[in-house]
C-alpha cells in the first residue's frame, strides 16, 4: 500500500520510520522544516500543570516536584480535548494512565534506536524529571532530553560551573548564574553552588558579532573540537579555582555550541577532559543547534530505513468522494514550476501549525492549508474562518485560542468534519496539526508529535492489514 507522509518533523518522520520498520512502503514529502527544527533539546510528554499555563509543577502538599508520570496522569484526567485523551481514552483510574505510560516508554525507546547512529540519544523517563538550564538561566523540568542538554540535570550536582565564552552572543554567563540561583531559591530544592568559569578558546574561534551557530559549526571540525577540549581541560587543571567536587557531583555547563552532529562522541571527550559531567544548555530563540541536530538525525534515520524523501511542496490533493487519490507536488529540486503527480493510497498529514505551514491565514480567516479541514480550539469551538486577531488576547497570559487550535480527530487519528465523522477514509493526522492543546505553554509539542506519529503509523498498518485481508 502506498503511504505518503506529508511533513518531515518529528511526527511525520516517526510515523514514516515506524511504517518502514513494519516493512511498508513509505514516501515522505517535505517542503522544509518547522517546529521540530526549532526545538531546543528537550522532549516533553506531560504538561507542566493541569490548571495554569506554564506553571512549573509542584505537588500541592509535598515539597518535591511531581514526577512526569504523575503529571501525565493529571493531564489525562483534566484535559479532555488534549490529543492524549484521543489516544489513551478518558477513563479515570489506571487504564488510560497505563496505556499512556506504556506508549511513552516504547516511543522513547524507538526514537532512541533511530537517532542513536547519529550520536543523539534520548535520555529520561517518567519517574523523575530532569531539571535542565536553558541558555538564559531558566530552569525547565524536562521529561526527556536529547544528548547535549540531557546530561545537565541540576539535581544531584553539588557544583555547577557555567562556562563563559568571550564574545559569544545570546549567552551571558553571569546573569545565567544569577538566574539559576534565583530559580533554585524559587523551587525550594537544595541549591548547588554556581560559578562562572572562563573558557579560553583560541582567537578567532568566535566570529565577529558572536554568532553561536558559527561557533557550533566550528566544533564540528576536528580542529575546533580539539580546541574546545583543550580549553575544558585547561579549566579542569586550573588550580586557582580551588578544590572542586569530582565526577558526577560537578557539572560543567556549556553554551549551545556542541555542533550539529556527533554530539555523543564529543561529550565523551569533553567529559574526560573535564573530569566531571559536561552538558549543554537548552537553547532559546533564535534557532539553536539542538533543533537542527534532531532534524538531521531524523533525516539520517529516514535515509537508513530507505524511506523515499521528496523535497517538494504539496499544492493540492486529488480526491474521489471520500478517498484521497493523489498529491500534486511542486518540486523544490527543480527550479521550474512544473507540477508532479504522486499517487497515494493512504495519506498522513503531519504539517504542523503556522510555523510549519499546516495552518495559515488568508482573507477568509484562519484555515488548514491543504484541505480546509475544520479547526477547533481547546473548548471544542470551531475557529476556522475567523480572523487571527480575534483569536488572541491582548495579554500573552492565559489561553490563546489561536495557538491551541487544530484539527479534531477520532480515536484512530482520522480528521473529523463538522458532523463528527471522518472526512476521508484514507487520511490520518499526526503532530501539532491536531488541536486541543498549546504546544508552547503545555510544552508537549514534541511529545504529542512522537506519540501521535507512532499511533498513526500503527493505525495505517492496521488499515493495510485489513485491506489485504
Amino acid at each position, binding site marked *: 500500500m502506498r503511504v505518503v507522509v506529508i511533513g518531515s518533523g518529528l511526527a511525520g518522520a516517526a510515523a514514516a520510520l515506524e511504517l518502514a520498520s513494519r516493512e511498508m512502503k513509505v514516501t515522505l514529502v517535505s*517542503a*522544509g*522544516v*518547522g517546529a521540530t*527544527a*526549532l526545538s531546543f533539546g528537550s522532549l516533553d510528554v506531560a504538561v507542566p500543570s493541569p490548571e495554569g499555563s506554564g506553571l512549573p509543577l509542584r505537588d500541592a502538599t509535598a515539597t518535591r516536584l511531581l514526577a512526569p508520570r504523575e503529571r501525565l496522569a493529571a493531564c489525562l484526567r483534566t484535559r479532555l480535548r488534549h490529543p492524549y485523551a484521543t489516544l489513551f481514552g478518558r477513563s479515570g483510574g489506571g487504564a488510560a494512565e497505563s496505556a499512556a505510560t506504556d506508549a511513552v516508554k516504547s516511543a522513547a525507546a524507538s526514537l532512541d534506536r533511530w537517532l542513536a547512529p547519529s550520536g543523539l540519544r534520548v535520555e529520561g523517563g517518567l519517574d523523575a524529571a530532569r531539571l535542565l538550564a536553558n541558555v538564559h538561566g531558566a530552569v525547565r523540568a524536562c521529561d526527556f532530553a536529547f544528548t547535549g542538554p540531557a546530561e545537565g540535570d541540576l539535581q544531584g550536582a553539588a557544583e555547577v560551573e557555567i562556562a563563559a565564552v568571550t564574545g559569544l552572543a545570546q549567552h551571558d554567563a553571569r546573569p545565567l548564574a544569577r538566574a539559576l540561583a534565583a530559580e533554585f531559591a524559587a523551587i525550594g530544592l537544595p541549591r548547588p553552588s554556581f560559578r562562572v568559569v572562563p573558557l579560553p578558546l583560541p582567537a578567532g574561534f568566535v*566570529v565577529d*558579532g558572536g*554568532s553561536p*551557530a*558559527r561557533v*557550533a*559549526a566550528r566544533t*564540528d571540525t576536528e580542529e575546533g573540537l580539539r580546541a574546545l577540549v583543550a580549553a575544558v581541560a585547561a579549566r579542569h587543571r586550573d588550580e586557582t579555582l580551588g578544590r572542586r567536587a569530582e565526577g558526577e557531583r560537578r557539572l560543567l555547563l556549556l553554551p549551545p555550541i556542541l555542533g*550539529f552532529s556527533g554530539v555523543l562522541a564529543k561529550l565523551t571527550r569533553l567529559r574526560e577532559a573535564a573530569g566531571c559531567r559536561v552538558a549543554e544548555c537548552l537553547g532559546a*530563540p*533564535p*534557532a*539553536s*543547534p539542538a*533543533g*537542527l541536530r534532531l532534524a538531521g538525525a531524523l533525516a539520517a534515520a529516514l535515509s537508513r530505513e530507505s524511506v523515499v524523501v521528496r*523535497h517538494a*511542496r504539496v499544492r493540492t490533493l486529488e480526491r474521489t468522494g471520500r478517498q484521497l487519490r493523489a498529491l500534486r507536488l511542486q518540486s*523544490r529540486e527543480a527550479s521550474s514550476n512544473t507540477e508532479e503527480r504522486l499517487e497515494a493510497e493512504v495519506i498522513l498529514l503531519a504539517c504542523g501549525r503556522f*510555523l*510549519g*505551514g499546516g495552518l495559515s491565514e488568508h482573507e477568509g480567516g484562519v484555515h488548514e492549508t491543504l484541505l480546509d479541514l475544520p479547526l477547533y480550539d481547546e473548548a471544542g469551538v470551531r475557529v476556522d474562518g475567523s480572523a487571527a486577531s480575534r483569536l488572541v488576547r491582548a495579554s500573552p497570559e492565559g489561553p490563546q485560542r489561536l495557538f491551541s487550535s487544530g484539527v479534531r480527530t477520532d480515536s484512530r487519528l482520522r480528521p473529523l468534519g463538522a458532523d463528527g465523522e471522518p472526512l476521508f477514509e484514507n487520511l490520518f493526522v499526526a503532530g501539532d496539526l491536531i488541536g486541543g492543546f498549546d504546544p508552547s505553554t503545555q510544552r508537549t509539542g514534541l511529545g504529542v508529535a512522537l506519540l501521535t506519529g507512532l499511533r498513526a503509523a500503527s493505525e495505517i498498518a492496521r488499515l493495510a492489514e485489513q485491506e489485504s485481508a
Partner: protein
Amino acid sequence: MIRGYRGFLREFSRTGSARAFWLQVRTGAAHILRTAQRSRGRDAVALFLENYREDGVRLPDAARDALRLEAQRCTACGLCTAECARVGGAPRLDPMDVVAAASRLAIDIVRLALPVADAACLGCAACEAVCPAHIPIARVKADLGSLGAMAQPAGIR
C-alpha cells in the same frame, strides 16, 4: 481641463488671511499661464528620480518587489544562520542580514547592498532550503548583488 479645477470655490472660501489670499491669486495666475505654455513630453519621472538620486530612490522593479514580498515572511527564527554555519557556507555573511537588507529600500540599500552582496557566499542555498517560511534567500542575495553593482560606496550625508 475645467474638471481639473473642481472644488475651486469651496477651497477658495476657506482662505484664512489676506496673505494667503494674495499668495493663492499670484500662484494661481502663474500656474494658468504656465499650463498654457507647458510642453508635453517632459519626463516627470526622470525629474523626480534626479531630485532624489542622492537619496537612492530608484524605479521599482517588479521582480524585486515580488522578492521583497516573499522576504517579509521572515520570523527571525535564525535557522538560516544556523544552517549556513552548519554547512560552512559563508563565514562573513548572515543570511538574516540578507533578508533584512531586502527590507530597506532607497536610502539604506544603496549603502547596504554593496557590502552585503559582496560578502563571500558559496551560493549553496542551504539557507533557503531550511527556511520555514520558504523565503528565496539565494535569489534575494542575487538581487542585492545586482543592486550593489549599481551602487556607489557612499559616504553619509
